[in-house]
């Protein structure tokens, strides 16, 4: 009985195992099916509805400088993972969202439009404005003013040692970051007559000596103007920053998500526009790229609230450290880096950091300290580690570098001119430096993957594409392209190669015969050869979906 029973049980076990396997297979299949197709009918999406849920219950998160430095320097916040940015659409681009609005990267912008930036006013006149408060944050001296309509502005001055320095770079940075696609606040240069300032009865300031809020006094303004560069006409050049609409929520962080914002579902270190900000930071030497220089505002409409995220405070970009010329280390090394420090210590300073040897040209004080000859975009660093920057991959950098490449010499010159430097040498030098740095940025990051872009598959099977690196003059023509076509099963997310690999000398090819006759999706993987750019061998893959009269690009993968 027992043996019979055992024998029966074994047979039953085998059958049960088979049935269980079928059941598990079915379940896995259903889960796989539940995971959905690779491409949905509405792909690629160009707008991320991250205002879908009411976020009115969010609270202020305002990090201190010390906290931000310590956390990012000595811990490793967020996730370090070699994963494609999680907020890109299927064609590897960033949809519009509360973080980013595609501008120069996706459409033609005129020079005038780039220069205008977020401005709603052509210029500002401070006539009739009153001083409505002090400025308690940041190192740049300033105060607040309110215009006759009640709109609040922040007023900041330039350091006496470097007139026009901080205000100039704020204006330049704002225009560039806006054109790139970030949300920024509107800034203008203006002249102020110290004697004409009127302080509001309600104006208060957080006392710099004890931190307590108290009424703003005349001498608070004296303290500001003591640290200000004065014009030859006795007035002061100031930067006027328009307060963003909404309720201030402090800053965003370059890692994790806000736990209290239902719309914030992508860890910030995996957002493409935050990873790619490293490229823009390198170009513009925005070494102050850190959480505390960001701004979250709660906007409301129709009883609905959502967070809008801003890049904020460009006073310490290019050659400026806001209150003086930029320090030599900026952009070259974190504030705290173990290895060079220990080496310096044990060698009694005989070990020297490379940036100590950079020869900065003699330029007007309004420029500060920036150059392009020694600039190496791949080695550029902000003040301290940034989780999103650390997660930047070749595809993120490629995306950002393409945007940088869209800024023409004429645009750069016009944006620098907007800063209204009184010394033409400053305008000329900064323009030259920014063009040279742009070229280095594009050369560095457009060549780390196969730089094929804008593929078009015609109904007759003709494929044309462009080379972003060549178009940006970041590389010469290569030695040809290799293409492997495939048929794509969207539901199963599988590829079936069709035909042999093709080698073509130029940016055009043709789909293998028969490939386009059946199936809804096809694709092609492209690599390229270049003697000095081995990164071109890292494939770019393109997916096309059958449309009404031809094929539509529906997917892009880079560097796989």
């Amino acid at each position, binding site marked *: 009985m027992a043996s019979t029973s055992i024998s029966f049980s074994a047979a039953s076990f085998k059958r049960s195992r088979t049935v269980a396997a079928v059941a*598990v297979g079915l379940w896995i299949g259903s889960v796989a099916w539940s995971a959905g197709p690779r491409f949905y009918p509405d792909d690629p999406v160009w707008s991320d509805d991250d205002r879908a849920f009411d976020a009115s219950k969010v609270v202020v998160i305002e990090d201190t400088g010390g906290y931000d430095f310590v956390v990012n320097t000595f811990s490793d916040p967020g996730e370090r993972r070699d994963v494609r940015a999680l907020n890109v659409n299927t064609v590897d681009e960033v949809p519009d969202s509360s973080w980013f609005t595609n501008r120069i990267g996706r459409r033609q912008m005129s020079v005038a439009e780039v220069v205008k930036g977020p401005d709603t006013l052509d210029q500002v006149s401070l006539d009739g404005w009153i001083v409505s408060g002090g400025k308690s944050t940041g190192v740049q001296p300033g105060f607040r003013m309110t215009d006759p309509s009640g709109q609040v502005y922040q007023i900041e001055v330039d350091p006496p040692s470097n007139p026009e320095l901080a205000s100039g770079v704020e204006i330049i940075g704002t225009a560039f970051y806006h054109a790139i696609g970030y949300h920024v606040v509107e800034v203008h240069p203006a002249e102020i007559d110290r004697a004409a300032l009127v302080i509001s009865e309600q104006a208060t300031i957080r006392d710099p000596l004890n931190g307590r809020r108290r009424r703003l006094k005349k001498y608070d303004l004296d303290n500001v103007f003591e640290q200000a560069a004065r014009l030859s006409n006795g007035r002061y050049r100031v930067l006027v920053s328009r307060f963003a609409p909404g309720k201030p929520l402090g800053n965003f962080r370059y890692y994790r998500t806000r736990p209290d914002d239902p719309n914030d579902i992508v860890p910030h270190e995996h957002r493409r526009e935050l990873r790619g900000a490293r490229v823009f930071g390198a170009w513009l030497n925005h070494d102050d790229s850190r959480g505390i220089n960001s701004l979250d505002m709660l906007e409301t409409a129709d009883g609905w609230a959502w967070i809008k995220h801003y890049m904020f405070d460009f006073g310490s970009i290019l050659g400026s450290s806001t209150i003086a010329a930029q320090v030599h280390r900026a952009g070259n090394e974190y504030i705290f880096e173990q290895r060079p420090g220990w080496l310096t210590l044990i060698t009694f300073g005989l070990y020297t950091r490379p940036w100590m040897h950079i020869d900065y040209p003699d330029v007007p004080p309004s420029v500060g300290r920036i150059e392009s000859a020694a600039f190496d975009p791949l080695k550029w660093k902000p003040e301290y580690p940034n989780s999103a920057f650390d997660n930047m991959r070749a595809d993120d950098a490629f995306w950002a570098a393409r945007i940088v490449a869209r800024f023409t010499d004429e645009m750069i010159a016009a944006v620098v001119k907007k800063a209204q430097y009184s010394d033409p040498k400053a305008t000329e030098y900064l323009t030259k430096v920014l063009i040279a740095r742009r070229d280095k940025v594009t050369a560095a990051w457009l060549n780390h993957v196969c730089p094929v872009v804008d593929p078009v598959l015609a109904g007759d099977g003709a494929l044309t594409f462009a080379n972003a690196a060549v178009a940006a003059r970041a590389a010469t023509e290569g030695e040809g392209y290799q293409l492997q076509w495939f048929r794509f099963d969207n539901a199963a997310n599988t590829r079936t190669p069709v035909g042999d690999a093709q080698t073509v000398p130029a940016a055009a090819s043709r789909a293998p015969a028969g490939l386009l006759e059946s199936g809804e999706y096809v694709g092609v993987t492209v690599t390229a050869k270049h003697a000095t750019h081995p990164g071109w061998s890292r494939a770019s893959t393109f997916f096309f979906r059958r449309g009404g009269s031809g094929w539509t690009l529906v997917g892009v993968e880079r560097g796989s």
Partner: protein
Amino acid sequence: MSRRRVVPILTLSVLLCAASASFAQEPATRAEADRQQREEKNREVQPYKQSGFEKAMHFVEEKAIFIIGREGFYPKLGSLTTGSGFAYGVGFRDRDLLNNNGELDLWAATSIRQYWATEARLTFPKLANNHLLVETWAAHRDYPEEKFFGLGPDSARDDITSYAIRSDLFGARAGVRPFPLLLAGGGLEYLNPRLGEGQDSRVPSIEDLFDPTTAPGLGESVDYLRTMAFVELDYREPKNARKGGWYRVNFSHYDDRTTGLYTFNRVDTDLRQFVGFLAGRRVIAARLFISTSNTDDEHVMPFYGMPTLGGHDTLRGFREYRFRGPHAILVQGEYRWEIWSGFDAALFYDAGKVANTRSDLDFENLETDYGIGFRFNTNEAIVFRVDAGFGSRDGKHLYIVFGGVF
């Protein structure tokens, strides 16, 4: 039996499939898929809570820094004078007095070596559109164990003694700033130093080894009216200098208003030069300090009015006040190298001597030492340093100091 097992398993699998399908509510579009994720987060949304560390940093950066530098009552911490040891007390200050023109600072503090002092100081640093400085003060100092080894370069280390000195001071000075880097002016001060037995039980009191011939002024109580004139040029960049210089000459006439015997003149010249290289991350700092005095034939200079060498800011290989004389010369050199932003190291060399006559005030037979130091600093000042001095005939010395050297 097998059928009875197969049926439930298949049933279960169908249910699993149905459940998973129904759980996922399969989206038909990307927009729906994203919305599902947000719905899920919306169900789990939590209020943001600060971590303990975050709270601590907020407290430190928004509250604690105002405790040290705060207006009103504040903790007075640091040292009272060379050799006092760590001092602590309480102060009160108002730095925006009279429409932000004046600064008032009142404090009282005692140290771990029983030194104590109190001071009231009223300063108007930026009058006449920043061209005029006016300052007045009143203070009381009680230093119970100041060290004395005898006068002149040949004083013996074994002759260490201590003495107490107590003094009230009332003074005022004014300076004009014709241009921002230059300050020149003069002042007047009343002071009444009183000497007493040294309170350091480890060493003899001064009168056990010295008398008024070897320690002039010992046993006398005199009041002084000090008149002074000074000129100061400061073009350091930044104040914790990486380049530039700081030069000061100070002339003082000490008029003995009690006996007339101890009237003397003293001139202190302090020249500091800073040469930065390698982007200012390496600095050669040099200092020349010369103090000289003169008295008429019928006058004597008291020992406690003489310059001293030895200690954390002069000859660092020697103990505090190791050398004392009517004249002194000190040369200091430092090679400073930045390790990290805000943290420097320094190799230093000190040489100096005191002299009994001005003709001996030369660079012959200097006492020397060398050492290494580590400094936490800002652009404005050295906040905290540890210096170790070696190479002298006075042994090794370690100094832990809140503040800079020169």
